[in-house]
């Protein structure tokens, strides 16, 4: 699921760049890219929440 979410997000991002650079930046294409990104982000968070207990054993280290 993590790879699927990453793939969808990257596809959405590329589509947005294409819509801005080659499709005149029309809002319809941009929003289509946003829809794809939204699906990817929701999948990412659902995976993150429900996978949390399985993958995380120790607490995180500070990154400041």
């Amino acid at each position: 699921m993590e790879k699927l979410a990453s793939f969808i997000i990257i596809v959405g991002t590329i589509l947005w760049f294409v819509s801005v650079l080659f499709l005149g930046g029309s809002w319809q294409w941009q929003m289509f890219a946003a829809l794809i990104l939204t699906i990817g982000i929701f999948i990412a968070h659902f995976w993150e929440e429900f996978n949390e207990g399985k993958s995380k054993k120790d607490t995180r280290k500070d990154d400041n």
Partner: protein
Amino acid sequence: MARERISQADEWQAWAQRYDIEGGIRTFESGLTGKVFFGALFVGLLMMPGSIYLSYVSGQSGAAAAPWVAVILFTELARRSFTTARRQELYMLLSLTGAAVGSGMQYRSFIWYAYFINTPQAASYEIADKIPAWVVPPGDSVGVLTRNLLHPDWLLPIGVFLLSKFLGTLRFVSGQYILFRLTADLERLPYPMAPITAQGATALAETTGKQETWRWQVFSIGSMAGLLWGFIYIGVPALSGVMMSQPIQILKIPWIDFTQSIEGFAPTGVFALRTDFGQMLFGFVLPFPVVMSEFVTAMLSQFVLNPHILYRNEILHQWEPGLDVRATGLFNDLDFWRSYGIGKTFSLGLVGMAASIPMIFKLRSSKKKAGERGSLATPPNRGDFPLWLMGLLWLIGMGGFVWLIHWMVPNFPLSFLLGFAFVYTPVNSYITARTYGVLGRDLFEIPYLHEITFILSRYEEIDIWFAPFPDEDYGAGTQGWRVLELTGTTFTSNLAATLLIMPILIISGILVQHFIWQIAPIPSAQYPFVQMMWPINATNECLMKTSLRDGNSEIIQAIRGDYVAAGFTSNLAIYGLLWVFKYPSMWFYGIVGGIGADPGSMVARLLGAIIGRFYMIKRFGLKRWFMFNPVLAAGFACGVGLIGMGTVAIALVSKAVIVKPF
């Protein structure tokens, strides 16, 4: 080496835990005593006037400083009297002072509209004669021309304000309490940021005991730094303003504008160095990645994106050479950034929902396992209220509020008011309460909600823009109830204190606004910040309030769908890519905060963050530095507040008694 993935909730919790060095308390005592009552009197009669005056002079109300000033004086009195102050008392005083300073700002709208109604902008946009009498008396009335808030002309605006205040107290106390019970008691959400506030009261309560701890030393260092800075930034202009027609500003307030200096290589870029270096303390406290990513993004926006992409492609097309930061910012805003900002805010809402909806699902599944969740039982002696009573109070408060708005704007469709009051407000508040409960901050806001509503209602009169609207959010306030719980302060004592302080603040606030207004016109040279900002605010308000007129709105015209979509999609892409490459989500909040912003306003915060990250942490160690942080910030705020209040008091007295012969 591959980065380890951290869930967003864990990431924010980890930051919050740095400040949470003590567990919660489960024994409750009243915070309202005779000593606190006299402290509250001090707040009402001295601190709020100073904060109102400061807001006109420097643009800062001292809202952060004033509570600490009150509390430090209170603890000193306790020490000199060989008695002790409990943390419940100190938190109560902190809370009341914060409320006092905040409520002082509400009265400012009287002065603002008395200025606005006679501005050339209001006249040219044909607003001046359409401002309702329940907002401000007519521009040629005696009450406005003689700058007299106590004149009978002001009876209607002040009466409406008082009724709104009463109904608002009913709604907010009951609404916040109900949501607190749902999120903190029923769902057991952690409220990760609440312990930070509780720490300040703990630090100062310790000073009145027999043994002084490190907190007092750190607080004193912060206080001395604050005194020095406060004298330079606030004291010198305030005191010199007493003797001279033009006050001396060692550092120009509020910024030094470099926009015209950079226009040669960065046309349309803005850079105004904000001179309030007290912001460094926020840089100490805020997470380093947020401050850094915010600054870098702002620099890229103003030095690359604006001049080399948006300007070259004629997206920013209104700018002309020679404009200052205010005009450049306004044109850039109208050309692009306002539209982009709408999309950006929607992306924040969506990201918030994407983070919180899976949590709700997870909470539901984990509820079955954990026996603690799902119970509305309250800890003993917390001073809780019956839920049915609070529900009834909220219904009365909201029903009365809707009636009041309907009386103000009788032709506006009642169905919209009822929908916002009884559907939107509870849902919006619940979402915010949950995000505060999990992440300690708000993530959900629908931009331009009023404008969209007015378009849908087909209501074209301008009076609706001046009326309050029942789209409220009680979610943020739930955190305050959690702080009460952590400090062991009974809820009943907090409610009693709120009701006790209210009449003091209402009376003293109106009197002080009247007195300050009598000293000199607002805006004028005596009040440099409002003199600089209010004219442009008047233009903005005119643009906003006429935005839907005759379907020929400058603001609506400035909003372009493709730019809104760009703001929405680009920020989702940034968020998504950060997730894909396993970077902390708080980078996203920094980037969002920095896009399109003026980097000059962030320099002080950046300095603080760099000093903290590369010197202080190495010097003191991470844990100790994050223990020192809130106490140092509190001390600094206290020092600035002391010097600010002191010099402002001298200035107030001098201006009241000295009659200049020229």
